[in-house]
């Protein structure tokens, strides 16, 4: 699905990613953990195509394509999704209008017929139910004035609407109460179908009780310094990061 080879990236001349190597196959769930500031969100942003980061070297192959050559929107249409750590507020653009535009453009890119209004609304209803998001949010502006938890649910809702091949969830669990955490995790699990893949960035082992990863990576100072199975997350919970840092 995605193959990251020796990826180096910097911002304002400061190197943040210092040689990332990672391969994720269809059907897999990977988790990335790591101390604050280690570069987790940077990796996510670089994969999504944020232009404030400069890729200094390395390659990323996504579904056979050279990902780094594609514009952000093309990456998305090719099936890459990023659930933001800090979802952006877009005053004046309703969720319905926003997600409709996104679905339309993605379907067009994939050569699919456009949905009828009725089908689209039905799909919205289904996917909202998946994350137990309130219907009244439909006509609110995207994330504007949403609570932390509502914003995160909205990310998972959008993911469900767009049905990506590969989704990165950047701390989607942060700021969620226990119930919301379970709802969001369930949402992700229901989307798993053996052909898609997930990269879950988190600080908390408890998320991984719900979304069980095949691999856990520890990112430290711009590099993956350790890879293991979900037991690694438990070990981290126990020992903290100091033993990694030495």
């Amino acid at each position, binding site marked *: 699905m995605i193959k990251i080879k020796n990826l180096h990236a910097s911002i304002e001349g400061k190197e943040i990613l210092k040689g990332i190597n990672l391969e994720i196959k269809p059907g897999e769930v990977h988790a990335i953990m790591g101390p604050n500031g280690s570069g987790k969100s940077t990796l996510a942003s670089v994969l999504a195509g944020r232009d404030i980061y400069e890729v200094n070297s390395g390659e990323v192959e996504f579904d056979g394509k050279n990902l780094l050559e594609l514009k952000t929107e093309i990456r998305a249409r090719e099936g890459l999704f990023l659930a933001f750590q800090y979802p*952006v507020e877009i005053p004046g653009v309703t969720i319905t209008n926003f997600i409709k*535009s996104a679905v339309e453009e993605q379907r067009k890119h994939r050569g699919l017929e456009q949905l009828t209004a009725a089908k689209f609304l039905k799909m919205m209803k289904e996917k909202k139910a998946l994350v137990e998001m309130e219907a009244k949010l439909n006509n609110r502006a995207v994330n504007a004035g949403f609570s932390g938890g509502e914003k995160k649910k909205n990310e998972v809702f959008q993911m469900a609407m767009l049905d990506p091949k590969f989704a990165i969830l950047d701390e989607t669990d942060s700021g969620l109460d226990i119930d919301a955490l379970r709802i969001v995790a369930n949402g992700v699990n229901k989307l798993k179908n053996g052909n898609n893949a997930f990269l879950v960035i988190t600080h908390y082992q408890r998320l991984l009780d719900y979304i069980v990863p095949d691999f856990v990576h520890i990112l430290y100072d711009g590099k993956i310094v350790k890879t293991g199975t979900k037991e690694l997350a438990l070990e981290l919970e126990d020992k903290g990061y100091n033993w990694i840092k030495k």
Partner: protein
Amino acid sequence: MSLNKKITKEYYNDILKNNVSLAEGVIKQSAENYIKNNDFPTTKDENWRKTNLTNLLKHQFSCAKKVNFEEQTLSAFNISGLKANILVFVNGYFYQEYSKIIEKNNSLQIESICRIKEKNPEIFEKYFNKTNIENANIFTAFNTAYAQDGAFVYIPKNKIVKNSIHIYNFTDGNTQKTISQVRNLFIAEENSEAKIIQSFHSLSINYTLSNIVTEIFLEQNSKINFNTFQGEGDDAHQINNIQVVQKRNSSFSNNIATLCGSLVRNDLGVKIDGEGCETDLNGLYLPDREQHIDNTIFVQHLKPHSYSNQLYRGIIDNKASSVFFGKVLVGEGAVKTFAEQNNNTVLLTKYAKSHSKPQLEIYNDDVKCSHGSTTGQLDKDALFYMQTRGIGEKRAKILLLNAFAAEVLDKIKIDTYKNYLKFLIDKRMTGEKISGHCYKMGECRVY
């Protein structure tokens, strides 16, 4: 005459003075005196610092004439679905044959001001130039001294005018560069209510100058909803002076949308001369190329317990520029005044310019006033966020711009007109060509 030479006020005086003018006697004399003693404003004048008339004053305009005008032209500019009382003016001349009053009521008057002056001199004299607008600037002086016609609306006591009043103003400079002067007068008597749309369109690509003066009087408990659509051509200039006087518990709402025009200056003055008034002033402007749009507003709170609001938004493309100069004065006696001012502009290129100056002048302590102003590019984080969902950059920008404009457009109270504007703005943003409506607008650059 060389294009670099400034056309003088004497030149304007000579070409305009031969018109049969509305004003007579003292009023005319006063206006002529103003012209004698004053000149065109320059950027040294406080109110004109960011609007330079040098280029305008290089054009040798001549007096606009009555031209042939056909019904089908009118229908090209029609607001779809709007059922309205219609007045039509071309180059400042009234075209009665196309005007249509659907709301019959003995004392409701929707007419040419010139005809009212003949038919009903009492009411004309009671209100005409009672704001002494001839002393505002040389444009209002020229208009007062020599304008010959314009729209007149009189809403009698307790009358609620159900259908909107749509006043079309066309300019046609086909054969020469022309100046036309329009003089409007709107009066809402006690407890009356009306919605007015005034639209400006060009019929030619030549240079034109429209010099418009509008006086609006709101008596007790009356309501006027006043909409202005400016969609003249890329070479059209418009100087638009509006003076409003509000009496007790009246409500005036203003919505001005400027989609095109070489140089557009809107001077809007509101005098709140009664308690408990509401004044809601909104504007949206979308200059492109090298266009310049100036909204200068002066709201005077003279009596207690009134509320005024200004929300002006601009999207400035290419090398265009805009001015928002909004001033609120709260007089000594105007306690419990609540005044808000907001101006936001989005600059689409690095050459686009916007000047913004909300200003408060307060002479008592018991008021609540706020003002804010923002200028900037589209939110990059929002654009990126949208792109990560697969929304292309252009579509993302259009979504953001439409949302930005919607705050102003959603205040429009006539749905058909609001939809018409949204349609035009959307077409403008996607770069689709449409005929009519706003001359050459379809050729405006795609955002």
